[in-house]
C-alpha cells in the first residue's frame, strides 16, 4: 500500500525540527505560517546545517510563534523587537546563524525602526517576514501592509492607508539581499532561504501568506486554499525586478522573485576592519563573547 501508519512510516522530515510536545500548534486551518516553516526546515535539511548553531528569534504574533515550535535555540521576545534582540545575539556570538522569523506587523509596524537600522548596518541577520497583510494574533487589525480598501477590525470601512512596498523599503534602508515569495512557491522559497542562509549580511525574504481567519474571510476572498490559488494565479516571477516596481496593488500581478543580492561588508566585518586598521595591534579580536 502506498500509505502507512505513523508508527512504521519513514520520519516526517519536518518532525526533527519541531517541539512535538507542543503540536498541534495554534495556527488556524489554512494559515500559511506552517507552510513557510516547512520550507525553512527543508532548506536546513538540504544545507545539512549544523542545527546547534542556528538560532531563531521571533517577536510577538501568530508568525512570532514560529520560534516556539522550532526545536532550535529559539527566542520569543517582545513585540517588534526581534531584530535588536537578534542583533545582540549575533554580535555576542558571531558563530551563530541568526534567523529572525516574524510577522509583518511585528517587523514593520512597531518594529520598523529596528528593521531599517539593522539593514543600514548590514547586520548579518536573516529575516523571514510572514506577510499576511494583517495583525493575526490580535484579531485582524490593519497592518502597514494591508491593501487599500481592505476591511480590518480597525478599518471597518476599508483601509485608506497605503501599505509599504517592503522590498523597496528594505533596499532603501540598505538590505543586501531582498526577495519575495508566497506560500504557494514552496520550492522557490526553500531555495531562496537556502541561499540566504549561506550568505553574509542583512537579508530579507517577504513571504506572502494566507490568514484565512482574519484577512481572507473578512475580505470575501474565501479560505486559505482560495488565497493559495490566488497567489498562484496572480504571481509573476521577476528576479532582479527594481524594487520600486514591486508594490502590491489591486489588479496588478504580484511580483515575486529575488530582487536584490549585492555584496557589502557586514557590520561585524566593517567593525573588524575599521578597528584593526585604526588600532593596529592594540585591537583585541574575540570571536564569541562567551562568558565562563
Amino acid at each position: 500500500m502506498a500509505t502507512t501508519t505513523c508508527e512504521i512510516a519513514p520520519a516526517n522530515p519536518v518532525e526533527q525540527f519541531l517541539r512535538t510536545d507542543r503540536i498541534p500548534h495554534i495556527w488556524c486551518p489554512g494559515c500559511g505560517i506552517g507552510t513557510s516553516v516547512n520550507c525553512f526546515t527543508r532548506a536546513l535539511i538540504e544545507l545539512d546545517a549544523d542545527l546547534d548553531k542556528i538560532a531563531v528569534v521571533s517577536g510577538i504574533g501568530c508568525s512570532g510563534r514560529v520560534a516556539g515550535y522550532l526545536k532550535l535555540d529559539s527566542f520569543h521576545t517582545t513585540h517588534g523587537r526581534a531584530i535588536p534582540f537578534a542583533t545582540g545575539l549575533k554580535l555576542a556570538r558571531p558563530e551563530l546563524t541568526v534567523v529572525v522569523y516574524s510577522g509583518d506587523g511585528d517587523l514593520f509596524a512597531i518594529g520598523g525602526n529596528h528593521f531599517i537600522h539593522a539593514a543600514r548596518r548590514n547586520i548579518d541577520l536573516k529575516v523571514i517576514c510572514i506577510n499576511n497583510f494583517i495583525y493575526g494574533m490580535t484579531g485582524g487589525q490593519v497592518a502597514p501592509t494591508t491593501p487599500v480598501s481592505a476591511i480590518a477590525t480597525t478599518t471597518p470601512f476599508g483601509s485608506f492607508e497605503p501599505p509599504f512596498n517592503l522590498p523597496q523599503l528594505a533596499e532603501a534602508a540598505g538590505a543586501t539581499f531582498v526577495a519575495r515569495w508566497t506560500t504557494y512557491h514552496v520550492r522557490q522559497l526553500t531555495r531562496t532561504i537556502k541561499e540566504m542562509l549561506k550568505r553574509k549580511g542583512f537579508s530579507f525574504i517577504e513571504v506572502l501568506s494566507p490568514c484565512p481567519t482574519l484577512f481572507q474571510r473578512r475580505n470575501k476572498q474565501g479560505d486559505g486554499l482560495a488565497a493559495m490559488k490566488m497567489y498562484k494565479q496572480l504571481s509573476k516571477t521577476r528576479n532582479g525586478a527594481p524594487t520600486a516596481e514591486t508594490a502590491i496593488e489591486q489588479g496588478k500581478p504580484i511580483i515575486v522573485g529575488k530582487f536584490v543580492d549585492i555584496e557589502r561588508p557586514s557590520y561585524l566585518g566593517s567593525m573588524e576592519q575599521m578597528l584593526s586598521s585604526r588600532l593596529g595591534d592594540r585591537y583585541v579580536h574575540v570571536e564569541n563573547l562567551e562568558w565562563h
Partner: protein
Amino acid sequence: MPKGTVTIIAERCKGCGFCVEFCPTKVLELSTAFNSKGYHPPHVVAPEKCSGCDLCGMYCPDFAIYGVKNGNASSGEDKKNK
C-alpha cells in the same frame, strides 16, 4: 510498488485542502469524516500515483502529511539532532 509513499497524521490535520490541491498527481482527496477537532482530513484515493515528491508535506501547514520516495525511508534524519 508506487514510487512514493504518503503518510497522513489525521489528528493533526485541519482540513485546509492544500495537499489535495497541490499534489501534482492528485493522490489525495478530503474525506467526508471529521477528526476529533472537527476537520475533514485528506485520504489517499490514488496511492499508485504517489511519486513521494513531498509537495504535500511542504504545503501542509499542520505537519500532518508527508511523502517519501520509496526505498528512501531514513532521508531527512539529521544526525546532529540529539
